[in-house]
């Protein structure tokens, strides 16, 4: 027990006051943390990013077809199939096909036929998406999975 002659490092009254303030501050911070968590969705409400696009014979070798409503270009070559996303890597507009490859209407990025950036503000080439075969034999594209450019899926 500290004697009366030894000064306490902090007065009891001050200590209790500070403890009260800090308790209140922590409670507020804790509630804030809980509130900030809420708007950050844990599950994204979206349609599945995997979708079937038909049989491989629908896409003859040498063809390039835009999959309806999916903003994906399916390229079929002797090496196999590739799906190139038509969502611009700059700010998410849908690119148009041009003579030399792709052109973005929003901010003028242009891409070569293999999706690599030729000009404009796009920070990177168009994404190549994973192509696979589903169990019923149809081709499947997963727009949530990117594969390195130049990856061809052999049917």
């Amino acid at each position, binding site marked *: 027990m500290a004697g009366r002659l030894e000064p306490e490092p902090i007065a009891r009254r001050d200590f209790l006051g500070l403890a009260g303030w800090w308790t209140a501050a922590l409670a507020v911070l804790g509630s804030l943390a809980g509130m900030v968590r809420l708007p950050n969705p844990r599950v994204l409400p979206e349609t599945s990013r995997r979708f079937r696009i038909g049989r491989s014979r629908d896409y003859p070798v040498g063809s390039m077809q835009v999959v309806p409503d999916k903003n994906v270009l399916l390229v079929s070559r002797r090496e196999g199939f590739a799906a190139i996303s038509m969502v611009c890597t700059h*700010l998410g507009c849908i690119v148009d096909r041009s003579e030399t490859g792709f052109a973005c*209407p929003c901010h003028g990025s242009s891409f070569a036929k293999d999706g690599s950036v030729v000009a404009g503000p796009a920070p990177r080439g168009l994404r190549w998406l994973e192509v696979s075969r589903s169990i019923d034999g149809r081709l499947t594209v997963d727009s949530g999975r990117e594969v390195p450019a130049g990856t061809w899926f052999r049917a």
Partner: protein
Amino acid sequence: MAGMKRFDQKRGLAAFLANLRRLPDTLSYSIFRHGRPRSERGRSQAVFSSLFLHLHPTRVHVRTLGLTATFGLGIAALSFFIILLVTGILLMVYYTPSTELAYNSMKDIHYVVPSGRLIRNVHRWGAHLMVIVVMLHMCRVFYTASYKAPREFNWLLGMALFVVTLALSFTGYLLPWDQLAYWAITIGANIASSPRELTDALGITQWFDPGGLQKELLLGAGEVGQDALTRFYLLHVMLLPIVLVMLASVHFWRIRKDGGLGRPQAEQTSGAVGQAPDLVPPPGGENDKTWSLMAVVRDRSAATDNEPGDTVATWPYLLRGELVVFMLCTLACLVLGVLYDAPLKEIANPNVPENPAKAPWYFLGLQEMVSYSAFMGGLVIPAVAMVGLALIPYLDREAEPAGVYMSGRAGRKIALQSLAFAVLLAVAWVAIPVNFGWLRNWFPGIPQIVIIFVNPGSLLTLGYAAWSLVILRNTGSTRLGAIALFTCFVAGFVVMTYVGMELRGPNWDFYWSRSHWPVH
């Protein structure tokens, strides 16, 4: 009981009738606590004791009422906000924030709802005009040096109000759920996720992805859909208006607390800054106690340097001026709303972007910079500009009375020089990429990180910063340096906005005029 007073039945009835007759007066007195404001003192008291009027002082300096002192821009901004609040609530009666119904409810408002079309047009025009007057108000405050001590904090509040005003416009832009809205918000949300450019270039997106987090917080999903619409609606009708009202209340309150409208030394008649004025009793009576608090507190008085001789009564003079500004603002909205319809394009289609997809005009300067690099143009440069503007009152502390435009001749000269420099530099940095391409055209294999940081937008910002530092060094005055910086910022904003509005066409290509756009 024996001591109980006996009431005369007739007298009770008479009192009741008398009270009934006096009801209008007693009711009015219970609300206002004073009689009808017939005298100057009565009107002062009315201003003083009303919650809504007491943000005004009871008397204002005559200079406050001069047209060129403020051009009424602050009151105009408030007027447009009130118009937006009223028309916005009316629109909410029919608007449905659902991707299925939003567009249809817009059509209903336009074609079916009684006076719905006019109300929507007024809302749209009010929003545009509010953005304009907020910007002009900011220029007025800057050029009259009204941001200086003791008004630094009010400048910060003003910056926050500017940002909230833009955020309100942006969130309102999505609600019609037409093509214009959908693609503007897609672009906006992707600007929020543009820190990915940097994290991708560094190869750390997998572990650290602030861009993705921002986008998900804004949209509640991977792309613009029902969750985005719900969130934008919530922000637009609830959160942001509440924030704006709170900030604006403090902003107005601080005008009084910081000593009212700033004015030049020559027009001040008594008291140096920091010296409490003599306690002159306000006109109207020796017994008024409004000064008692000031007499107890040992600090500078809030009502600085006011002598009754320089002042006029708030009611009627100031209130009349405010009413005129409000009427003019309403008139402007109405005339524009009758003459020009707010646009409504086709319903949103996630597969076909607008070409060109343009943001509202006040963001087109940003969009021009975004077309160089999303991360620098959309986030870093605006953030640097905002922080730079916010710090001005803390970095320029030269004591100087507020109220003289450009602080006199030297300031006017610097402002003109800066204007010329800023316009030339901005035009040059737009013209060079248009005519000669940019780094990727010259060096195809250049690393992405160089392209992100070295682009016309960031070079323009650096040029402006360098120019104001040179002015600062050559003149030895922080105020002149600030004038240079602010003028550059305004001129750059105007040039970039003009380029984005008028000179960019399909594929964001350069066209001298809209009539040269290819037809398709």
